[in-house]
């Protein structure tokens, strides 16, 4: 059974008080953490004039749209419209929420009605995310040690050591984004270099 959860980033890339762009298949999302650390993910579109909420700014426990400053609480409801300071915004004005969970250092997204929990990746260390202009097939052709579909795992040898690698695959229109984790004792810089070499090799496979 494949999971509906898709990794959209690593927790260390989203500190408190920050918003970033996320993606679940073709749905673009704004993923953000409040000052106190509450996590939320919404369709990346302010209901007012369609501006990307991922370009907005976090103040305390709210996210504001950068266009007209409309303020949304972590529950997705619009709390304040600066052009009309004394107006209580109608309840119907709300951002469309997705499920977002931070687990084992990974930010996971799924539609709001998801019932299962995200996959567990205990014992691994988050390394980094990287985007590739090629698809999954080229990636698999470039590295035979990896197996899987949404979650690629394998043991790779470099620098004389076997390193456990886990790549979470996030599809996007022009390629894939990988969120990489590795065995707890591996050298993060070495793994990062290996990932860049892998990207180079995978993208070259497409050019061939």
């Amino acid at each position: 059974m494949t999971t509906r959860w898709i990794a959209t980033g690593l927790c260390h890339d989203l500190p408190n008080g920050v918003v970033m762009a996320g993606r679940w298949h073709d749905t673009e999302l704004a993923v953000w953490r409040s000052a106190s650390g509450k996590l939320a993910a919404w369709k990346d579109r302010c209901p007012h004039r369609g501006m990307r909420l991922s370009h907005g700014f976090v103040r305390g426990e709210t996210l504001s749209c950068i266009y007209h400053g409309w303020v949304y609480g972590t529950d997705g409801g619009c709390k304040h419209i600066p052009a009309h300071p004394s107006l209580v915004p109608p309840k119907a004005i709300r951002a469309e929420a997705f499920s977002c969970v931070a687990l084992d250092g990974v930010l996971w997204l799924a539609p709001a009605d998801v019932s299962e929990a995200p996959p567990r990746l205990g014992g691994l260390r988050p390394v980094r995310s990287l985007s590739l202009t090629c698809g999954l097939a080229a990636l698999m052709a470039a590295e035979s040690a990896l197996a899987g579909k949404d979650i690629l795992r394998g043991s790779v040898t470099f620098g004389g050591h076997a390193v456990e690698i886990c790549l979470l695959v996030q599809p996007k229109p022009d390629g894939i984004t990988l969120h990489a984790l590795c065995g707890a004792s591996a050298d993060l810089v070495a793994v990062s270099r290996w990932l860049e070499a892998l990207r180079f090799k995978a993208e070259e496979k497409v050019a061939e």
Partner: protein
Amino acid sequence: MIAPEVLNEWYPVAMASQIRAGQRRQTQLLGQPITVVLTDGAIAVQGPTGSFPVIERFGHVWTCPGTPAHDLFTVPEVDQPGRRLVDVGVVRVKCSPLRAVENFLDIAHFPFVHTDILGAEPHTEVNRYEVQIREDTDEVWATKVTFYQPQAAKSAEVGIVTEYMYRVPAPTVSVLYKTCPVVPGEWDVIGIFVQPLTEELCDVWPYMALFDDVTPMAELIAFQQMIFLQDRSILENQIPRLLPLDPGMEIPTQADLTSIAYRRWLKKRGLTYGAQMVAA
């Protein structure tokens, strides 16, 4: 197929001084390739199947790819003695030409997009203003618009409450009149002339006719350029890229009365190039 209502309107396609200086501009209008060129001392616009009519006005070249339904609008104020006419130049924006115009009609974004220049928190309130479709000229007008501005113009030294009037005299054009910081009782005139390259791509020509004989031309241009580039960061990140005319797609408030009138005016007149009629 592009609707005749769209083809029969006037659109800006070049800055006249550049064509007069001998530059040839190969560009697009409503998805068709066109060339703007100087021929025997006259500016001509060549389309795929022949030449289009040309009007040179406000320092720009205007053309109509169909049969002009009416004359190009005028702005009598620009001929007042003492005004500086500022051709700002061109900014390419990946958005619907209609979104570019709508953004120009909007004041509520000033504190957030043009922070500490055209607006600043906590002065975010948009007071009620008046909007009408003027039947005689078939234009959208917004009047009695007021807003607090820290630096209303390059010439403004202190924050002032600026009064605005907005006007949509053509589907891809807006002209505003705002309190002139240096000459009491006069309006500065600022416009955007939007050339629809395609439904999702436009060239925007800001234009100004100001009472300001002090600020160097380069600084006037740089000020307007800065403002418009701030707008572009919004315009290229609105979803969908087309302007939704389906009322269920976006949620306006009282501050958006001009935008609501503009959308209705476009819909009623069939000017739907760059618009999304039904939610995707």
